[in-house]
C-alpha cells in the first residue's frame, strides 16, 4: 500500500512538472503581450519596455522558467499583471468558491442521479423508468448555459425565487450562502445528475439481473434488501468512478455557470487571465487545477478499496 502511494505520488509529480512546462511555454508562444495589455489603450513604448523589464519578460525562457519554478516551490506565484494583486491572494479568494460550487453541484447530482437511477432500474419498463430516463436524456441534450440564462430570466427576475447573481461566503452566513449558491449548483448539477442516473441504472440493471442476485431472491431475500445490499453497493463503485472523472472537470468546467451567475470563482479568473495574458495567474491556475485533479483521482482510487475490498489498488479496472 505504501509503495503504491509512493508510486502514485511520483507519477503525480511528473504530471505536475509536465503541466507546468507545457503551460509556461504555451502561454509565451501565444501572440499578445502582457505588458501591452497592462499598459492600456494608449501606452507609450518606454512604459511598455519598463513593464516588460519589471515582469522579467526581457530574460531568456529557461531563466524565466527556473525563476518561476523556484518561486513556485516556495509557494510564491508572483503578482498578477492585470490587477497588481498577489496571485496567491487571487487564487485563495476564488478557489474556495469554485470548490464549494463543484461539491454542492456534485452533491445534488449524486442525490438526484442515484435516486433517479435506482427508480429507473427498479421500475423497469414502467412509467417511472421512462420519466427518469427521459429527464436524463433531456438534461444531457440541452446546453447548460442556456438553461442557466432561462432560469435567471424566469426564476430570478420574474418570480424572484432566487437571486440573479452574487455570492455570500459560507463562513459569513451559511443560509445566505445556500440561498445564493443553490440555483447555480442546480444548473451545474443537472447534466452530471443525468450521467450518474444512467450509470446507476445500467449498473443496477446489470446487478439485479445477475445470477447471484436471482439466487438471493429465490432464497427469499426481500426486494428492498436485495436492492440495497447488491444493487446499490455495486452501483456505488461505478458512481464513484464517474464522480472522480467529473469532479476534476468541474473544478475547471464551472466557468460558464460562474460567468452566468457572476460567481467569483476560479473559472472566470482562468478565462480572464488568458485573455489579458496574465502569465503568473495562468501558470498558477493550471498547476492548481492539475493538482486538484490528481488529488481527487488519488482519493477516488483509495475510496474503491473502502467500498469494495475485492479491488486491489494497483489493478484498477477500466
Amino acid at each position, binding site marked *: 500500500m505504501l509503495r503504491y502511494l509512493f508510486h502514485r505520488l511520483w507519477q503525480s509529480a511528473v*504530471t505536475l512538472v509536465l503541466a507546468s512546462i507545457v503551460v509556461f511555454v504555451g502561454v509565451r508562444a501565444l501572440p499578445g503581450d502582457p505588458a501591452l495589455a497592462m499598459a492600456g489603450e494608449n501606452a507609450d513604448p518606454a512604459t511598455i519596455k519598463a513593464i516588460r523589464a519589471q515582469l522579467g519578460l526581457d530574460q531568456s525562457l529557461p531563466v524565466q522558467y527556473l525563476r518561476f519554478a523556484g518561486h513556485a516551490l516556495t509557494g510564491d506565484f508572483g503578482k498578477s499583471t492585470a490587477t497588481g494583486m498577489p496571485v496567491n491572494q487571487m487564487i485563495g479568494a476564488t478557489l474556495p468558491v469554485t470548490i464549494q460550487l463543484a461539491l454542492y453541484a456534485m452533491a445534488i447530482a449524486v442525490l438526484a442521479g442515484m435516486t433517479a437511477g435506482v427508480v429507473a432500474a427498479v421500475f423497469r419498463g414502467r412509467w417511472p423508468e421512462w420519466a427518469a430516463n427521459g429527464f436524463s436524456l433531456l438534461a444531457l441534450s440541452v446546453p447548460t448555459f442556456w438553461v442557466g440564462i432561462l432560469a435567471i430570466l424566469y426564476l430570478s427576475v420574474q418570480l424572484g425565487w432566487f437571486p440573479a447573481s452574487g455570492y455570500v461566503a459560507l463562513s459569513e452566513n451559511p443560509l445566505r450562502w445556500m440561498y445564493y449558491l443553490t440555483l447555480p449548483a442546480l444548473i451545474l448539477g443537472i447534466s452530471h445528475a443525468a450521467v450518474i442516473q444512467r450509470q446507476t441504472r445500467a*449498473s443496477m440493471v446489470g446487478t439485479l439481473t445477475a445470477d447471484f442476485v436471482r439466487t438471493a431472491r429465490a432464497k427469499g431475500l426481500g426486494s428492498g434488501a436485495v436492492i440495497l445490499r447488491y444493487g446499490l453497493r455495486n452501483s456505488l463503485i461505478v458512481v464513484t468512478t464517474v464522480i472522480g472523472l467529473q469532479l476534476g472537470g468541474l473544478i475547471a468546467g464551472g466557468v460558464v455557470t460562474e460567468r452566468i451567475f457572476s460567481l467569483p470563482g476560479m473559472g472566470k479568473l482562468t478565462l480572464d487571465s488568458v485573455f489579458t495574458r496574465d502569465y503568473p495567474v495562468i501558470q498558477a491556475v493550471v498547476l492548481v487545477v492539475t493538482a486538484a485533479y490528481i488529488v481527487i483521482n488519488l482519493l477516488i482510487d483509495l475510496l474503491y478499496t473502502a467500498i469494495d475490498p475485492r479491488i486491489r489498488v494497483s489493478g484498477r479496472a477500466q
Partner: protein
Amino acid sequence: MTAIAETPAETPVANLGRVRGRVVRKLLHNPMGLVGGALLLIVILAGVLAPWLAPYSPTEVHFSTPFQQPGTVGFALGTDDLGRDVLSRVLYGARASFEVGVLSVLLAVVVGVPLGLLSGYWHWLDTLVSRLADLMLAFPFLILAVGLAAINGGGLGNAAIALGIANIPTMIRVVRAETLRLKDTDFVLAAHTMDAGAWRILGQHILPNALSAIIVQATVIMPAAVLGEAVLSFLGLGIQPPKPSLGIMLSDAQQYLFRTPWPAVFPGIVIALICLGFNLFGDALRDALDPKTGK
C-alpha cells in the same frame, strides 16, 4: 467537457458478419433508436442541404426588418437584431455544429485509437501514454481552447481541435481497456501461437473487435462536442461571426433577451434535437451491440 461511454460494451468476438446482422436487426426493433436515428437523419439532411433549403444567405443583413416574430411572411422563424433570417442561420448553424462534431470525433479517433491500442498491447508504452492521457485530462480544457483561439481568433477548426483533444484521453482509455481484455481472449492467443506479428494481431483481430466500443464512444463524443461548440462560441472562443453557429446565435440572442426571446429559442431547440438524436441513437446502438440484451 469530457464524456465516457457507460459500461464498455461486451464485444462479441465471434463471427463479425453475423454480429452485424444481429445489431442492425436489434436497432430496427428499438423504437427509441429509430426515433433518434430519424431525428439525426432530419437534422443531418437539413444541415447538408442548407445551401439549398435556406431562403437567404445566413449573413444577409436586412436593416429594415429586425426582430420579426416567427411566422412573418418571408421569415418563417423571424429575424434577429440585424434582420437576418433565423431559419437560414439555424440551418447553417446545424451544419457548422455537425462539422465541429465530426471533426472532433475524427481527431479523437485518429489520435486516441492508435494510442489506446499501443498502450493496451505493450506494457512499456502504457506508462508513457497513461501519463500523457493524465496530463490531457488534468490540464484545464478551457485554457487550451482560449490559447488556440488566441492564435488565430477562434474558428470552426479551433473549436474542433480543442474539443477533439479534450476527448482523446477517454478514447485512449476505452480502447486500451478493450485491448487489454481482447489480448487475453482465446482467438488472440491462438493467433499468437500461429506466429502472427503484433501489428497483424492489433489490426486484424483486436481493432475490428474493439470497433463497437469505439463507435459507442464516438456517439458519446458527438453530442458532447455539439454542446461544447455552443459553450465555446458562447464564450467567444469557438466559431467566429460572420459564420453562423448555434452557439453564436444563442450568445447574440442573450444580448437582447429582454427585448425578444425568439431568436434564442430556435438555436437552443436545434442543439437539443441534435444531442437528443445522438443520445437516443447511441443508447440503442449500445444496447444492440451488447450481446447480453435479449434478441
